[in-house]
């Protein structure tokens, strides 16, 4: 019995490995069919030796053996590329064989483990692990691939000059004296760098936190302390709705605002504030599509729900007896709130703030149609820019009509790398703070 289950285990592991390889490459054409046949033989051997040893022989093993033979037959009959039924693609045969191999080898591994460990209920539990581990392994491989690619493509190109210089692609005419006559000479300034993009990301984070912090805390405090049940429902619903409706809706509104500013407020100072300073082209200032100020207001709409939720959690988490103790001493609600509850919830609020910053740093949905490349520096009134926008521009720059793709194309992954570093750093800080908060409750 042991021998049969060990052989079955080896065969099914081999089938599993072959399935994963077929998923990755197209070249293992000759192997799936024989492996499937051997697998079905191994399963049948397993079943019969289980019968012989008077262990619990599951009927479904026979079903899997039959399926395995059937899939071997199907695979032999398929052409290399499947097409037809107007499906917009050619499915390579190795995809089908990978599918068959994976779905048949995982149960086979489970069954052989079960019999190897003695067919007890405890063995049944252990034999379920491959069922969990295989999909998780595939997904973790995908994540590893992402990290690997970004680091390998992006990190080597990162050098100090890239970070220290902003991206510039400006042209203007200047007047110089030549032989006694004024001549207009074209000048260009071309510089490759991501400084302004990094600064823009940081500015977005700072501005949106600044705006969303008081509002979020206000919402949390109001819902926790003062609101009646109906009012609390309405406020909670609208705050979660702000997060549920995606950023793309916000960008439509933002575009409306920009268009409104162009059409109706043309030439005024308000237009400059709303649209932000862009870049010089041919000697004149071109306004961008949105300034940092306005973009941060929209981004903060996405962050307010996070901060409101963590504020409320923090306020709720204060042990009831301490609050009652304060009230029993005659302190007013506001006093309890300001002196006791809010300081207690500070760690929660700061954690939420860090998470919100990570969100704001990475958000592209709200700004990707209105941002620019920050050639005129980074301040609240200049054109919105961000690392995420740079990545987007490198991909779709041609369609947007600017030149970023030509010059900054190779640096797309570098920008992704820097952005990844910022967001992962912030997330890790938030995680550590969450752990510290949890420890605080354990001690208390």
């Amino acid at each position, binding site marked *: 019995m042991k021998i049969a289950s060990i052989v079955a285990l080896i065969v099914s592991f081999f089938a599993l490995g072959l399935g994963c390889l077929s998923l990755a490459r197209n070249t293992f054409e000759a192997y799936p069919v024989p492996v499937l046949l051997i697998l079905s033989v191994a399963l049948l051997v397993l079943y019969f030796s289980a019968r012989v040893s008077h262990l619990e022989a599951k009927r479904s093993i026979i079903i899997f053996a039959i399926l395995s033979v059937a899939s071997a037959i199907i695979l032999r009959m398929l052409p290399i590329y499947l097409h037809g039924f107007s499906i917009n693609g050619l499915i390579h045969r190795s995809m089908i064989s990978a599918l068959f191999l994976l779905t048949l080898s995982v149960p086979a591994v489970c069954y052989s483990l079960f019999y190897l460990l*003695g067919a*007890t*209920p*405890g*063995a049944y539990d252990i034999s379920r692990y491959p069922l969990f581990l295989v999909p998780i392994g595939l997904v973790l491989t995908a994540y590893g691939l992402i990290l690997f690619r970004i680091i390998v493509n992006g990190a080597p190109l990162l050098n100090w000059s890239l970070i220290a210089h902003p991206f510039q692609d400006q042209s203007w005419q200047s007047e110089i004296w030549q032989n006694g006559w004024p001549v207009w000479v074209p000048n260009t300034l071309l510089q490759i760098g991501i400084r302004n993009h990094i600064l823009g990301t940081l500015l977005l984070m700072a501005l949106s936190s600044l705006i969303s912090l008081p509002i979020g805390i206000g919402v949390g405090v109001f819902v926790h302390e003062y609101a009646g049940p109906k009012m609390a429902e309405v406020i909670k619903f609208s705050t979660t709705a702000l997060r549920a409706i995606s950023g793309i809706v916000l960008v439509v509104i933002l575009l409306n605002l920009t268009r409104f500013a162009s059409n109706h407020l043309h030439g005024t100072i308000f237009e400059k504030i709303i649209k932000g300073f862009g870049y010089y082209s041919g000697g004149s200032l071109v306004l961008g599509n949105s300034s940092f100020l306005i973009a941060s207001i929209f981004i903060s709409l996405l962050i307010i729900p996070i901060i409101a939720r963590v504020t409320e959690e923090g306020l709720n988490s204060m042990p009831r007896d301490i609050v009652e103790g304060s009230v029993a001493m005659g302190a007013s609600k506001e006093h309890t709130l300001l002196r006791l509850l809010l300081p207690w919830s500070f760690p929660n609020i700061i954690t939420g703030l860090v998470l919100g910053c990570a969100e704001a740093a990475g958000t592209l949905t709200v700004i990707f149609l209105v941002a620019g490349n920050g050639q005129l520096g980074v301040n609240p009134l200049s054109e919105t820019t961000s690392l995420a926008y740079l990545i987007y521009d490198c991909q779709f720059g041609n369609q947007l009509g600017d030149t970023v793709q030509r010059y900054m194309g190779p640096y797309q992954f570098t920008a992704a790398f820097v952005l990844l570093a910022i967001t992962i750093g912030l997330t890790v800080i938030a995680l550590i703070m969450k752990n510290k908060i949890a420890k605080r409750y354990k001690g208390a």
Partner: protein
Amino acid sequence: MIATDVSRTHLPVTGVKTCRKPGGIELKGLDVFYGQKQILKGIDLVFPPSKVTAIIGPSGCGKTTLLRCINRLNELAPGCKVKGQILLDGEDILKMDPMLLRQRVGMVFQKPNPFPKSIKENVLYGVKAIKKKCDYDATVKSCLEKAALWDELKDRLHDSAFALSIGQQQRLCIARSLAIVPEVILLDEPASSLDPISIMTLEASIMDMKGEYTQIIVTHNMNEALKISDYVAFLYAGRLIEFGETKKIFTHPSQQETHDYITGKVY
């Protein structure tokens, strides 16, 4: 090695075999650690088969830990290490598959914990889980009769178990653990959440089950121990201080700590 001779007790009404030969539990040199802290120190104890043994002692002395060792539920807690031997009918349960062990050793918990299913499904849960082939309706009837619930619930078998009172829920938990026909039943302070009438019914059930099952009950209530148990083990600070027949322990305890505990000087 599964106990193959089944007791000849048949309930005349339903003709369902309800028990097998009750096994004896023996603890040899048992040490239990949670992390660095040692909870039980060198316990040597024999629980006589077919009898009710009560484990008494002050709070925190390790009674529940001892009980949970016997059906290996303490392994669910992280960092738990068990050294020594625990024998069920001569087999070391620490080397057995835990699920097979728990099919022979049932447990009733302090707070009743029925599943969020109907009464009938609650009773049959264990039977279906271990894939035992038997007459489901007859099993439900006999187990509920044993737990003194059949008359009250025979028309309400499909109601949710949460609709019952706490006392009924606790008796449902007993019925549930009887359905898998164990050899040993562990009871962890079963009466602590119950009102006096439910406690009386519970104690009557325990007395009824004497002879068919080995029962080990942890209790804080000395009157209860006096009433229902045949043997008593006194635990203090993780050590077994004294073990013997109930009457003898309560009238002439041989150790000073036992005497102090029984007379109420220590709790």
